[in-house]
Structure formats: structure tokens, C-alpha cells
């Protein structure tokens, strides 16, 4: 790919899409007040759902999922179910209650609920770790696309992509651009589904709903090329599949940047209905994503490569290669690339800013400089943003794994730590600071137990696989939180009363 020419038309479409987002973001700044003024109406909920979906979209959704389908077939369905089913956990157990706490970040919530600076600092450190791991997955997506766009090698593309993200964040910040997530979602869904419609139409399939139309490609692969996808649980056990699926669900309900959507929802009802609309918009992407992986297999078969062993190094780019092999207009390919880049760019900038804020507001003034002013914290946030970006780029220079699987590690960490902390903090008022600190520490240990202890104790890798550790890990962390809380002093009457009255509406008796 390093000898390829610069892709001029796609590059222009990428530039046009980012220009649209910047201009749209400037417009949304002016409209913001009226948007909140109509809180609770239909369009408010719809818009809130689009914002949730846009906040969720990343390179893992646009590129990674199709790559996994191409490479591993049905196994990738664990991601589809995990990344949609997790929103039910979020909806019924956390979304509205989080809104009632009136806090702004995950460490802020943990610090307030558990009345503990230590718990807050630990939650901040975990948030930073989650941001770094998730960003590494995103940078791989950016690098693959930038590599194709500019015709440069992978490592040069990592540096170029990283520089572009940082430049974009600085320009957006300087211009005071507010992220217009609704506009972004609608552009992203068009950029993702339109190429699929072109591809299925060209193949003569049912293109109006390519989410169903791609099924014909599976049949054609079987009847014309004798290619059968391996049976669902032939290569992965049912336990491991379910472990991955539930880990992704627990992680979805524990990712700090996902939870952050609910702290300032205009109203309780909007928070709830926003989740359901968000889930619908996210499902539109996931109903479509398998199609790219399947069509890429079909194009391989048509090229006489039905049984070639797919290369994991290039599998993450099958969304693009399928579009190129399908011979659709270059501007449609450009749209697809722009959509993938935009999703990854915004995911990286949001995660790095979250991580930088966790350091500047939760760690720096508590552990390093108690006398820090607001201005110091702001400067520190900007500085730490650059430090985090440099760290992520350095860690991304050598590819560590597929996009979706690297992202799954971040989900596992969130599912083992932040999710139990929020769940117990809301639904069991006896949980105290000692319990949550012990639980989160155990959660971190479980998350990395496979690479650290798996060599000496293979059973650890079986029970807590790196990408799927929260299936058993999260319940274990909950047990630790319960036991340690019961063995130590209960939380204050103030916080127990706050939880009953303000969060659960229980009247004084």
C-alpha cells in the first residue's frame, strides 16, 4: 500500500466532510439554548438518540466489526449483541439515576457517591487507562485509512494521522466549535449505508435494504464457490463466545465517555427515550456492518481466492477493500473513508479530552498540587492532552491487534471496574468507599490477569480471557464490593438519604 498514489477525490471528500462538521458545529453553538428549551419533545429525544449514537460511533464500529466478520464469521456477532444489548443494562439500571446525581464525570460520580478522594483518584486513573487502550484501537483505524489516502506506510500513517487529530482538536478549540453530534450521526449513517446499497445493487441483490440483501452473497458463496462459513461454535466455545458478549455489554454500561452522555440529559424522560433512539440508530450501523465482511469474502471468491487465509493485518480495512473491489463510484468510496475517519477522529479527540480532564481535575489537584487554581487545571488539561496523544501514538506504532479486539480490552476493563462501581453505587446504598476501592483494584487485576499470569496459570486465561474477562470478572468484583463493604463502616446517613430521596424518590417515613 505504501507505493499507492494519493487518492485525490476521496481526500477532497474527507476535507469537505470535516469542513461541514466544523461549520455545523459553529451553528450548533448558536442553536444550543433553543434545543434545551424544547427538552422532552419528540425531536429532542430523537436528537438525543442521534447524539448518543454519534458519541458511540468509532473505528471499531465502522471498520473493526466488518473486519472481524470477514476474518472470523459468526464470532463477530458477539460484538453486535454486546454493543447493542449493553444499552439495555444502561437504560434500566443506570441512565436515569446517573442524571439525578448531577455530576459531570465518572470520577466525579464515584468521588461524590462514595465520599472518597481515593475512590475518585482510582476511578480517574482507570478512566485514563480505558481512554489509552480505546484510543490505540482508533489510531489503528485512522492509520489504515490515512495510509490508503496518502499512499504511505503504516508507521508514517500513524504519525500523520495523530498529527491530523491533534491539529483538528486545536483548530476546533480555537474556533470554539461545539461538536454537532446529530449532524454527525446522520452524515455517518449515510456514509456507511449508501456504499452498501451501491454494492448490493451492482451485484443484483435486494439493495433497498442491504441489511437483508447481503444474505444472497452467503448463498452465492455456497452454491457458486463451495465456500461455507465455519459453524458458529466450531472454532470458539459457547462459553468463550458468551464471555465476550457479556463483557462487551458490561463494558458498554461502564465506559466513562458513554456514561457521560447522561449526566446532563435535559430531563429524566429524555435520558430514557434518548437511550432507545440511540440504540435504534446504533443498530442501523450494526445491522449493516456484517454485510461488508460477507461481500469482501464474495469478491475474494470471484477473484479465485475463495479459500485464501485472510490476513489479520489487512482485515480491518475490508470495509474499504470491499467498496473498491465492488467498483462503486470513487466519490462513494470517498464518503465511506470520510465516515470512518470522522468516527475515529471524534472518538480519539473525545477520549483524549476525557482522559486529560480526569488527570487535570481529579489527579493533579489531589495528588500533585492541592493549591491549583482553575486556570492551572485548564493549562494542565491541555498539556496532558498532548502527553496522552504522544503516549497513544508511541504505543500504536507497532500494531497490537485488530481494532475491535483491542477495543474489547477497554470494554473489559470498564466492565470490571466502572460498571460495578456505578451499579452498586446506585442500587445498594450499603456499598462504601473501602468496598468500591477494593472492588475496582480487583477489577483492574482481573482485566490484566491473562497476560500477566496466564503463562504460569493457564486456567486464568481460560476464565478471564483478555478481551472477555468481565463475564466472570464483573460478578466477582460485585461480590468483593459487598464483602468488603459489610466488613467495614457503612457510608454516611447523608449519602444514604440522598440516594433514597434524590435518586430513587423514596419518601421519608
Amino acid at each position, binding site marked *: 500500500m505504501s507505493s499507492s498514489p494519493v487518492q485525490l477525490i476521496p481526500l477532497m471528500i474527507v476535507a469537505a466532510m470535516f469542513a461541514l462538521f466544523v461549520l455545523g458545529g459553529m451553528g450548533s453553538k448558536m442553536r444550543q439554548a433553543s434545543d434545551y428549551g424544547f427538552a422532552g419533545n419528540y425531536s429532542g429525544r430523537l436528537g438525543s438518540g442521534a447524539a448518543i449514537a454519534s458519541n458511540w460511533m468509532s473505528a471499531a464500529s465502522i471498520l473493526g466489526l466488518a473486519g472481524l466478520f470477514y476474518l472470523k464469521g459468526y464470532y463477530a456477532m458477539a460484538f453486535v449483541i454486546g454493543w447493542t444489548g449493553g444499552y439495555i443494562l444502561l437504560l434500566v439500571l443506570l441512565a436515569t439515576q446517573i442524571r439525578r446525581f448531577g455530576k459531570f464525570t465518572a470520577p466525579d460520580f464515584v468521588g461524590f457517591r462514595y465520599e472518597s478522594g481515593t475512590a475518585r483518584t482510582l476511578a480517574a486513573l482507570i478512566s485514563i487507562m480505558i481512554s489509552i487502550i480505546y484510543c490505540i484501537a482508533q489510531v489503528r483505524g485512522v492509520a489504515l485509512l490515512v495510509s490508503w489516502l496518502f499512499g504511505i506506510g503504516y508507521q508514517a500513517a500513524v504519525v500523520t494521522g495523530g498529527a491530523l487529530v491533534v491539529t483538528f482538536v486545536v483548530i476546533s478549540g480555537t474556533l470554539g466549535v461545539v461538536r454537532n453530534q446529530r449532524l454527525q450521526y446522520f452524515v455517518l449513517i449515510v456514509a456507511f449505508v449508501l456504499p452498501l446499497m451501491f454494492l448490493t445493487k451492482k451485484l443484483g441483490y435486494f439493495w433497498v435494504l442491504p441489511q437483508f440483501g447481503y444474505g444472497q452473497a452467503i448463498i452465492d458463496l*455456497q452454491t457458486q464457490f463451495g465456500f461455507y462459513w465455519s459453524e458458529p461454535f466450531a472454532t470458539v466455545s459457547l462459553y468463550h463466545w458468551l464471555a465476550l458478549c457479556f463483557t462487551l455489554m458490561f463494558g458498554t454500561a461502564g465506559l466513562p465517555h458513554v456514561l457521560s452522555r447522561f449526566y446532563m440529559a435535559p430531563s429524566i424522560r429524555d435520558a430514557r427515550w434518548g437511550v432507545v433512539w440511540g440504540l435504534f440508530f446504533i*443498530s442501523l450501523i450494526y445491522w449493516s456492518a456484517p454485510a461488508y465482511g460477507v461481500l469482501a469474502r464474495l469478491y475474494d471468491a470471484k477473484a479465485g481466492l475463495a479459500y485464501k487465509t485472510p490476513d489479520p493485518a489487512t482485515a480491518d480495512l475490508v470495509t474499504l477493500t470491499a467498496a473498491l473491489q465492488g467498483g462503486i463510484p470513487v466519490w462513494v468510496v470517498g464518503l465511506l473513508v470520510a465516515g470512518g475517519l470522522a468516527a475515529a477522529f471524534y472518538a480519539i479527540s473525545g477520549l483524549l479530552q476525557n482522559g486529560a480532564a480526569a488527570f487535570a481535575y481529579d489527579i493533579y489537584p489531589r495528588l500533585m498540587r492541592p493549591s491549583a487554581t482553575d486556570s492551572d487545571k485548564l493549562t494542565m488539561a491541555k498539556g496532558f492532552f498532548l502527553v496522552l496523544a504522544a503516549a497513544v501514538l508511541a504505543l500504536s506504532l507497532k500494531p497490537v491487534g485488530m481494532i475491535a479486539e483491542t477495543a474489547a480490552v477497554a470494554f473489559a476493563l470498564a466492565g470490571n471496574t466502572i460498571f460495578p462501581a456505578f451499579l452498586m453505587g446506585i442500587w445498594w446504598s450499603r456499598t462504601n468507599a473501602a468496598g468500591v476501592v477494593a472492588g475496582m483494584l480487583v477489577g483492574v487485576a482481573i482485566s490484566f490477569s491473562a497476560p500477566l499470569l496466564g503463562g504460569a496459570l493457564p486456567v486464568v486465561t481460560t476464565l478471564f480471557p483478555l478481551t472477555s474477562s468481565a463475564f466472570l470478572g464483573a460478578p466477582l468484583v460485585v461480590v468483593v464490593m459487598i464483602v468488603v463493604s459489610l466488613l467495614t463502616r457503612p457510608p454516611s446517613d447523608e449519602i444514604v438519604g440522598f440516594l433514597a430521596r434524590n435518586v430513587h424518590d423514596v419518601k421519608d417515613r
Partner: protein
Amino acid sequence: MDHKGTDQGINIFRPQSGLLRGEVQVIVMIMAAWLVAVVGSQVAIWYMETTLIEYWLSEIIFFNLPIHFWLSGQFLPLWFILLGVAFNLWMDRHESRKFEGTIRYRAIGRSKKEQQP
């Protein structure tokens, strides 16, 4: 619950107030429908895979898709959306009842005060 001088403790397994009990019952029902759908569908697929010796699962087509692709890739996300809608409709009604209860309580309180000399 072991709280110093308060009986307001929140425990999802032992909700104290009637309204919270109703909410927890719905949460339990939704979670059960979520869990059974996720685990049940995969156990069913695993069972079909191990018992249907003569066919590949991808030869059983439903809605133009192999049955397992349809079940996991199309139906389950739709099922989650339906569960979300059911939960929200119930919660909207539940909160309206709670709100009406608050209004009635206030109205009664005011009329008793007015009757006092």
C-alpha cells in the same frame, strides 16, 4: 440494612417503598427477557449446530439470511429496542402515577388544614 439511624437504605433485592418495588419488578422482568434472549438464542444455535448433522446452519435461510445470522444479527438488536420501548412506556406511566399521588397528597393536606379552626 445496617444504617445508623435510617431506614432509607436502597437494596435492589429488597426494595422498601411500594413505588420502588414496582420499578424493581419491571427491571427484573426486562433483565430476564434480555438474559433469556441472549443466552437462549446462542444455546439454541449451539444445539442446532450439534444436532443438524446433514446441514450446515448457513443452509437454513430465514429472511434471506442464514438462521443464526438473522437471529443474532437482526432479531436480537430489534428485541433490545422493543425491550427498551416497553420499559420506557411503563416508566412513563409509573412516573405519572407517582406525580398524581404527589398532587393528591398535597390537595388532601391543604383541605385538612383549612378545616382546622
